[in-house]
Each structure stands twice: as structure tokens, then as C-alpha cells.
């Protein structure tokens, strides 16, 4: 036996054994993904290609192209999602900035109030908005008493109500990653900028804002993608006037019992969502937004 193959066979066996163990340990996770993700999505694809007569057919997809109503539904879905995302940025970014500048103890308190809605049922929050915003609801009554407007106005069962509810529910998804990114910005960067002659506003736009954008983009993307498939809130607060893809899927099943059509809608929505994520990943480094890569 020469010195070079001393223990070589044994070490190789150890290496193989270790790999086997690692595979064994990760197999429950792999199984879980298979059972709850791969198989159902595969089933969805399969069903979407089954026509009304139970044979293979493209009719579910053809219908989507032919009927104008489908195009309108997809446009509404994207519009509502974009508007919600934009409003979330408009409200959430200043909020996250404000929180990031507070002393830690107070900031944590604010964080809890931001998170509080998370711990309340989605349905309860949505119906609470319905109560607040209806014609004889709290908002209309107060506004009339304060003289802001004279007649009760319609703020629910339309786009306004849908947006109010959706923004309220989505806001934490934007605030949390944005706040995280802002907290990670070294205060010395701003001092350095000031030292070199940047006014506070200039330092904000040239240093703070660019450094906070990964968190902001991550949050905005999350909000947008969640909005694309949102059902409960637009269904309740939209009052049937704002029809999004998810609602059409439900009516296809509940009203028309057409699983094929519903599945096809689901597939298209899934593909569109993947496309959005793919485009976003071309422009942003996704791993950087989740804090993984550096």
C-alpha cells in the first residue's frame, strides 16, 4: 500500500454515505413540495386542456381570446394591482422612512402597530371597511357633520372601496422590507454626504433613497404579485363592479361549474405572474432584495 491511497477507499465511502444522509434528510421537504405544489399545478394544467365534452381541447383558451370580457378582466386586474402598489409606495415609503429615523424603542412600537392588522382575520378587516365606508357609515357621517361634503357619497362597492381595502391589507408587505433596508443603511453614509457638501435633501436623494430601493422594490413586487391573485377584499368591497381574475375563476366554478375554464384562467394568471417576476428579476437582483446575496 503506497502513501497516496492511504485510507482512500474509506474516505470515499464516508463521502458517499454523507451525501446519502443529506438526501435522506431533505426528502421530507422534497416530498412536501411535490405533493402540495408540483402535483396540483400539474393537475391544473391538465384540467385546463379538457373541454366541456371531457376530451382534450383548446376551447378554454380560445374562449379567453375571443371574448372581450376576458381582456377587460385582465386589464382591470393589472390596473387595480398597479394602483394598489403605487398607493402603497406613496403611503408606505414615507412611513418606513419615518419609522427608520425613530429611536429603536419607539420604532419597535410603531412596527407592532404596522403588524397588528396581520394578526386580525382578513375577512374581518374587509367587512370592517364595508361598515366604515357604506352610505350611512362612519366616514360619510363624520364627513357630513364636519361639512366636508353634503350628501353621502359612494365610497364602497366601487374602485375606491376596493383600493382602500387592498392598500390597507397590502401595506405591511411593503413597509416591512422597506423599513428593513432603511435600517441597514449606515448613518455614516449620510454624514459623509453632508461632510462633502450635500444638503440634507440632496443627501437623501443621492444616498439614502438609492440605498433603500432594493427593499422598496422587494416590497412593491410582493404587493403587486399578491394583488394579482387577490380575491376576498375586491370581491366584498368592489360590489361586483371591479371584477378581477380571481373573481372570474370563482364564478366559473360556482356559477357555471366549468372547471376547465377556471383552470385555464388560473394557468394564465400563474404564467403572467411568473412573467412579471421574471421581468423584475432582469432589472433587479432578486437575491439582493431578500437579503440573501451580498
Amino acid at each position, binding site marked *: 500500500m503506497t502513501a497516496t491511497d492511504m485510507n482512500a477507499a474509506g474516505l470515499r465511502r464516508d463521502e458517499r454515505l454523507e451525501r446519502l444522509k443529506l438526501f435522506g434528510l431533505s426528502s421530507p421537504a422534497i416530498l412536501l413540495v411535490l405533493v402540495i405544489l408540483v402535483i396540483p399545478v400539474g393537475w391544473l394544467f391538465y384540467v385546463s386542456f379538457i373541454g366541456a365534452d371531457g376530451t382534450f381541447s383548446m376551447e378554454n383558451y380560445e374562449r379567453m381570446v375571443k371574448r372581450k370580457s376576458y381582456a377587460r378582466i385582465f386589464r382591470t386586474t393589472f390596473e387595480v394591482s398597479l394602483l394598489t402598489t403605487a398607493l402603497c409606495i406613496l403611503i408606505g415609503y414615507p412611513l418606513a422612512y419615518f419609522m427608520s429615523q425613530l429611536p429603536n424603542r419607539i420604532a419597535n412600537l410603531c412596527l407592532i402597530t404596522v403588524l397588528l392588522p396581520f394578526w386580525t382575520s382578513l375577512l374581518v378587516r374587509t367587512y370592517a371597511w364595508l361598515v366604515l365606508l357604506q352610505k350611512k357609515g362612519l366616514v360619510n357621517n363624520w364627513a357630513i357633520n364636519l361639512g366636508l361634503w353634503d350628501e353621502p357619497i359612494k365610497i364602497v362597492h366601487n374602485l375606491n372601496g376596493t383600493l382602500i381595502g387592498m392598500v390597507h391589507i397590502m401595506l405591511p408587505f411593503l413597509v416591512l422590507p422597506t423599513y428593513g433596508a432603511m435600517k441597514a443603511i449606515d448613518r*455614516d*453614509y449620510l454624514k459623509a454626504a453632508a*461632510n462633502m*457638501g450635500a444638503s440634507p435633501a440632496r443627501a437623501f436623494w443621492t444616498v439614502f433613497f438609492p440605498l433603500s430601493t432594493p427593499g422598496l422594490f422587494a416590497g412593491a413586487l410582493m404587493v403587486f404579485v399578491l394583488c394579482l391573485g387577490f380575491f376576498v377584499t375586491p370581491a366584498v368591497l368592489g360590489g361586483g363592479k371591479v371584477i378581477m381574475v380571481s373573481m372570474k375563476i370563482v364564478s366559473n366554478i360556482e356559477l357555471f361549474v366549468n372547471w376547465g375554464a377556471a383552470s385555464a384562467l388560473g394557468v394564465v394568471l400563474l404564467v403572467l405572474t411568473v412573467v412579471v417576476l421574471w421581468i423584475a428579476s432582469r432589472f433587479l437582483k432578486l437575491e439582493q432584495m431578500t437579503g440573501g446575496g451580498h
Partner: protein
Amino acid sequence: MTKTKQGALPISVRNVTKTYGPVHALDDVSLDVQSGEFLTLLGPSGSGKTTLLMVLAGFTRPDQGSLKFGTDEVIRKPPHLRDVGMVFQNYALFPHMTVAGNVGYPLRLRRVPKPEMAERVERALETVQLGGYGERRIDQLSGGQKQRVALARAIVFEPRILLMDEPLSALDKKLRDRMQIELRHLHEKLGMTTVYVTHDQREALTMSDRIAVVNFGRIMQLATPQQLYDQPENRFVADFIGDSTFLDVRRDGDALVAGGTTLQTTRPVPEGQSLSLMMRPERLHLLTGTAADDVNEFTATVSEVVYQGESFLLYAALDSGTEMAVRGAIRSGSFAALPKPGETVRLGLESADTVILADEEPHP
């Protein structure tokens, strides 16, 4: 001492006080930095040295006092209007910009035209020996290179005052030693008034024209490195700079007695009853044969001999129990010839090296 170049500004600090609750971070500090001088603020952590630098940069608002750059009162000026360069401890290089983006940032704020900006950025990078590095990303740089970029960014807009907050503390020892010399050369070349903060006494001694030793938010002594080492004004400075051992000194009529020896000194002796003798290890030496007249002689018992490569450190205790340290160079064979623990030795301290200090009055 310093070459004053055009554009350097003197700094005048008067009666600056900053309190955080009951703590005096700065306690009525007055200080003059001459035009073009390299002055170091040296002190332990929490001494107030960084607070003073932050007051100079404008990031800390003092309770009272005056701060002048040249003849301009700047104490109420916000940081972005002070026009001073600063190197931060952790460099604070913007991670979303390239090297050139970082170095060009102050020029962009000053609306310097693009071609001139590119030229000045490259020139600043060349000054710190990073010519051609402009397109690199910050995370591609080593610690030493980041340090240089931070320096280039602080000097590119030709500020007349440069502040540095422990800029070398994150570097390893070899690189730090080299950067000390480089910073020194750069200062000689550019000639801007420089205030440098460090807790590293060797760094301070190596680089500075003058050193202000800071503690308890006050300046304990302001002097050249040599004066500081040879003639410390108080026990804190003597203790903080270099190694030293102290012996209690007793007044016996006109004579001063320490460790059983009547002391001779050519140095001024402070007033007061409570005095100490400061002894630097390398100024003490082992006596063989008869000592010269002007040498103070102590008899002690060797307790330990330590080998330290280029030198030895010998600890010896007086009868009173006080331990003294003696340092000496090692030449071939000389270490083996040193006295062994338990042996009695005679130690000599020349009268010119005999520094007597007043003990500190206890500080609140």
C-alpha cells in the same frame, strides 16, 4: 515645524463644552491648530476626542463655545456648508457608486464640469496610488484600498481642513505602519490643516506635528511627540504615553527621596507634597561597577526576565515591593548573561531622565 501652504486654515477652538446628561464629553476645551499643522487628538475611548472631532465636522452641536476656521465663526454652520474633508473610521464609502462615483461625489455637488471632474478624480486617485481604479465597485476593494478611496474622496475637493477619525484602525498592523508613513507624506505634499483622532499612541507619535492628549473631556497636554514622551506634565499623560512605572516620592527637607535613594534631577520639580517619580523601562539600566555621579541608583531583586526578540524586559522589585521594569537591547549572548530571578541588581537612572510629577488630584 510645518510648511504652511496656500489655502490651509488655522482652527481655533474656544471654551467648547458638551454635556450628555451629567457627563462632560467636552469640558471647556480650548485648542489652537496652526495652519497646515498635523495635530492628533489622542486619548482612551470615551475621552471626548471623537466628540471634539464631531464638533469640528459639525455633526455634534456643543452646548457652548466658539469654533473658528481662519477668521470665520463656524460653530452654528451645518456640516454641509463647512467645506472640510473627512475620513470616517469605517470609510463610509457609498456602496451604490463606483470608486469614481464616490470620489467624484463632492465635485458633482459643486457642479464641477464633467471633463474637469474626471480629471480631478483621476488625479486624486493617483495621489493615493489607485490610478485606474475608477470603475471598480466598492465591494471589490481590499481594506487598504477602501481606506485610500476614502482619503481620495476627502481631498479631491481641496478642502482647507482635513479631519480623520481613526482611519487606520481597521487595517492589519503591517498595512497600518505603511499607511502612517504615506499619510504623513501626503500631508506634507498637500499641506492642509489636519486633525487626526486615534487611541494608538505609537500612531500619534509617528505622524503628528503636535499631539493633544485628551481625557475626561479635557486636554491633558498639548505638545510635540518628543516633549510629550520626555516631559509629560501629569501622571495621566506619563501613564498613557509609553510604558512607565511610578515610585512615590517623599520630601525630606529640600531633598527628594524615592525607593531609598535621594534623587538628583535636572528637571523642574512640581510644587506639592504628593509626588511620583516616573521611570521609562528603556531609560533605566543595569549598573555594573561604580555609577557615575549624576546617576540615581536603586537596589532591587530580580523577579522575572522576559525575552521579547529585539529586547528583554526585566522586572525587579524594590524592598518596598514596588516593581520596576527595565528594557534593554539584546545582542548576541547578552540575554544569557542577564541576572536570574532572585539575584540582586543595581538599577541606574540618569538625572536628566529623572522626571518628577505631581500626583493627580482625584477627578470627579
